[in-house]
């Protein structure tokens, strides 16, 4: 067992465990921390896959930003200790498991249709160099347009969030 496989197993455990906690916990805060664990695990996966930049972005934006936002959201709403409804989860589970089965079948039944992907070759060696990622963002031939659209999206989200949040006579009125 190589270090990589060990790391993978540890991260997989963390990721799935975080997801389960998110699903199963009785406190929203626990769920948020479970989400955090899961996101950190995904960041680890990115490292293993060679995408350092994305891993760090994941940590900065998701763990340092989005999860904190959720925590704020949790703190600003009343404690909600809802009972876990087995029935609801079971009903949803039918769909979810069906989806899982179909997805797995879709992937594992994909003989000869991998489009250049070699599932046994391993991650790309050397990883994604940050300079190349930056060039890809700024390349007219590559991702410049989506990049600009994303920047506009962020601006819109910023303005929109401010606008929604500053609504007159909000809670308590």
């Amino acid at each position: 067992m190589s270090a990589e496989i060990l790391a993978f197993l540890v991260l997989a455990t963390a990721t799935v465990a975080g997801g389960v906690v998110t699903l199963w916990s009785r406190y929203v805060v626990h769920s948020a921390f479970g989400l955090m664990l899961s996101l950190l695990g995904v960041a680890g996966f990115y490292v293993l896959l060679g995408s350092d930049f994305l891993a760090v972005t994941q940590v900065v934006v998701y763990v340092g930003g989005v999860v904190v936002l959720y925590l704020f959201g949790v703190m600003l709403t009343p404690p909600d200790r809802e009972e876990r409804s087995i029935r609801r989860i079971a009903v949803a589970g039918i769909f979810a498991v069906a989806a899982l089965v179909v997805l797995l079948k879709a992937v594992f039944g994909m003989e000869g249709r991998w489009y250049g992907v070699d599932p046994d070759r391993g991650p790309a060696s050397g990883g994604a160099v940050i300079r190349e990622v930056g060039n890809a963002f700024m390349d007219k031939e590559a991702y410049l347009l989506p990049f600009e659209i994303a920047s506009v999206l962020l601006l819109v989200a910023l303005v929109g969030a401010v606008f929604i949040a500053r609504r007159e006579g909000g809670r308590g009125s």
Partner: protein
Amino acid sequence: MSPVPLHWYLAVAFLLFVLGLLVVLSRRNLIYILMGVELILNASSLVFVAFGSYRGAKGLLDGTVIGTFIVVLAAAEATIALAIVLNIFGTFHSVRPEDPNLLKE
């Protein structure tokens, strides 16, 4: 030293996706639902990066870029969605998705 097969990553991503889906479907709190959406987004991003990485350097670059866009999207989504949730709470004093029903009937 054998590398980790791609299918392992995919399996984890699918599991994560299904967990997110379950959260979205079964929880009765808007904040939970948003968290489930985050899980789903992460799962899809992971699939992108994993496939990209197993295609080689160029594929990894594309996977990284798409993953970055998903992160951006998720950040914007979380911001707006949480603002809306807080507004809903301010109006209806509830974060249950079924409570804002002024338009119903």
